[in-house]
């Protein structure tokens, strides 16, 4: 037995070397996920993001790149917590590249896990995004944000309201088109406004002027409107008043309705089948 350990002095040398190799298990998913969230600026106080209010004035949108060195430094700070001895630091230094690669992959899982979408495994590369400070964020919760590069979707890494009127969005890539769209779930009904005192409902047979009650403060005569539109039921009236969600595109492409409703309503057949 003793012969096995005759080179016991070498064991202590080897113990030192052990800290220097990058073998061993990677950090557990919970740690990687935490670090990935930090990379996506989760929990970073607003003053660290925007050091002066003048950088994000009221009613403004600011596009930006994510400085990977900044978030890597923050991750280093988190990893250095509790690494006080030289051996612990050597251990960490040896694994630094492995951990960074693992967090790069975890970064893309954060949003994928929330949306339930599959994500092809690859390292996150350039990360871009924007800060939007506007009444639109406060008044229209649940804005749809999309981005594309050369027609290919650029996926979001994070879409979050930091304050009631401040939206932070990060994209996995450099898009050439960013689209912000009115929330679809809050489908609205309304009219066109040809002049401040008139309202119209566009239809297949031309615009129909909206009738109002005489002497009333802008109250629509709903029964007369339904008759003018040929609507026979509340549903047929409502479908003709649907306003498509507004879509703001940040490129040279003009604004356009984002989707066309496909109607699956039996009693609409009568109303529109005749037209």
């Amino acid at each position: 037995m003793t012969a096995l350990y005759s080179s016991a002095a070498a064991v202590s040398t080897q113990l030192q070397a052990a800290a220097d190799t990058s073998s061993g298990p990677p950090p557990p998913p919970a740690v990687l996920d935490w670090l990935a969230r930090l990379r996506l600026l989760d929990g970073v106080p607003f003053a660290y993001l925007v050091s002066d209010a003048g950088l994000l004035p009221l009613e403004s949108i600011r596009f930006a790149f994510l400085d990977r060195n900044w978030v890597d430094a923050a991750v280093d700070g988190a990893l250095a917590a509790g690494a006080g001895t030289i051996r612990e630091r050597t251990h960490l230094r040896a694994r630094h590249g492995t951990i960074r690669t693992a967090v790069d992959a975890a970064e893309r899982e954060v949003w994928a896990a929330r949306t339930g979408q599959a994500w092809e495994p690859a390292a996150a590369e350039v990360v871009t995004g924007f800060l939007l400070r506007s009444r639109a964020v406060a008044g229209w919760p649940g804005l749809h944000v999309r981005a594309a590069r050369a027609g290919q979707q650029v996926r979001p890494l994070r879409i979050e309201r930091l304050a009631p009127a401040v939206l932070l969005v990060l994209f996995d890539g450099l898009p050439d088109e960013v689209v912000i769209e009115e929330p679809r779930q809050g489908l609205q009904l309304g009219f066109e406004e040809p002049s401040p005192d008139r309202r119209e409902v566009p239809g297949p047979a031309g615009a129909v002027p909206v009738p109002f009650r005489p002497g009333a403060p802008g109250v629509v005569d709903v029964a007369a409107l339904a008759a003018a539109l040929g609507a026979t039921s509340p549903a047929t009236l409502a479908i003709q008043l649907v306003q498509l969600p507004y879509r703001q595109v940040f490129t040279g492409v003009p604004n356009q309705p984002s989707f066309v409703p496909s109607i699956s309503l039996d009693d609409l057949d009568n109303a529109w089948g005749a037209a």
Partner: protein
Amino acid sequence: MSDLDTGEFRLRSSVLPTLPAGRYRAELGHTIDGVGAVEPVTRTFAVVAPQFALSATEVQSVFPPPNSEGSYGTRLAQIALMRRTLPWEREVTPNDAQRRPWLALVVLTDAEAALRPGRPVTEAVPSSLHAALGITETSGTCDHIETSPAVVARTFPRPDELALLCHVREVAVGDTELAGADADGQLAVVLCARVPRPLPSGEKLVYGAYLISLEHRLDVLPTATGTPVPGLGPVQVDPVGPKTLRFPVLARWRFTAAGHGDFGSIMGDLHVGGLGTAPGGCPAVAPSGHVAIAHRGRRGEEAAAWYRGPLTPREVVRRPAGHPLFAADQARAIATDGLEDLSYAAAFELGRLLAMSDPRFLAELLTWRRESMAAATVAATLPLVPGVTDLGIDPVAAGQQLTVAVLDRMATDLDATFGERIPRVDLPPGFASPDDLSDIAQGYGLDLATVKRIVRDALIDVAGPQLPPAPALESSFATLAANPALLGHLRAELRRHVRALAVTSGLDPDTDRFNPGFAPATIPDLYG
């Protein structure tokens, strides 16, 4: 579960409950041939539905957004209710053959209606209806509005409009926050026919939107409102007469109608730019995106420093991995203009503080570090054991065996196991290069040779001047009693203390009372 695909929606004119809310009696009769009728069984039951108040969770969304300000002159105010049958669960008039909704959404200015929150239900409903609606003194409280007959005649829906202002909307909820919370995705929507506008002068106007109960109130609604006209006419906020009509309010919110501010115009008016675009030049931003911030240095000196957050106007090339920071100071940098750049130091410190403030993360991290270091140790030492890798045994078990064996050997032969003494400063390979040492020497104002000696080879002499050995205390009371001279030290010390006490008390220590002759000389002197 909805059969709609993402992005699709479906409208229904109504979803009627089988039975409107109320008290019912069910009577079961049975007749058997040749025997006759069996005595009928009678049971009573009640169908309940919200009547004077609505839980906030019953409201899915409202438009215009609560407390918002904007131009809503082309959109109808609406409230979407989670319960698809709610507008039809009660009756606007008893036994209504048309099954018209009992809820209406009205949008009124503060001049037109006054909100009375949390008042007894008996106040909110005319006393003539108390019996029919089952209201008693114990019915609790609800919100209600007070308004005048003129306002009702102008702005409330006519009986023939009630049904047109309600519908059921079915949406695909798979891609929204509603997923899971509302399985059928069907929402009852109540509309208001009034177009909310600002004052003709362009001044903002605050509106309250109220979802009111019209249960058994059909007769107060306007029946004829005149021939429709194609124009809206001016907004009227003039006095509207005494407020004598009250309606229970189930849900309410407020919004402000202003000139412009629908979603399209807000988005169109945004100031667009890259981060670092500062209209008016305030603050001053470097082209790289850095901003000069006030900074107090370690010596307390006030200075400016550069800071740039994680969002930058330009792409920044990522540094290669493998050189982790272990302290924030490693990331401090001096910009070309001589000011410090604290950006990455601040990031490091923030990451460290966030980690330290999250005990769960910290525990996971430390557990991993411990296990990882142990695993690395086993992996590195196992090959030292000849043939162990060929044995196919469990490396962890082998590692444990090895540990026991090594400990055993350490205990039996210390010198052979540990070899030479290692230097006190245990720097890892490559930590201190000659350049580093000259930096350290310069930084601390030390002689380079001294630093080299400390770091490289010399053992640091921590022992100070030799202290004289303490005298042995090996006396017992018996010894002291036998040889009172041994108490000499004690007596001298006692005398010194007594004199010191006398001095601090303002007494003359050289009087008889403090004469050393009075000091006890033997054990019996001391203890009596």
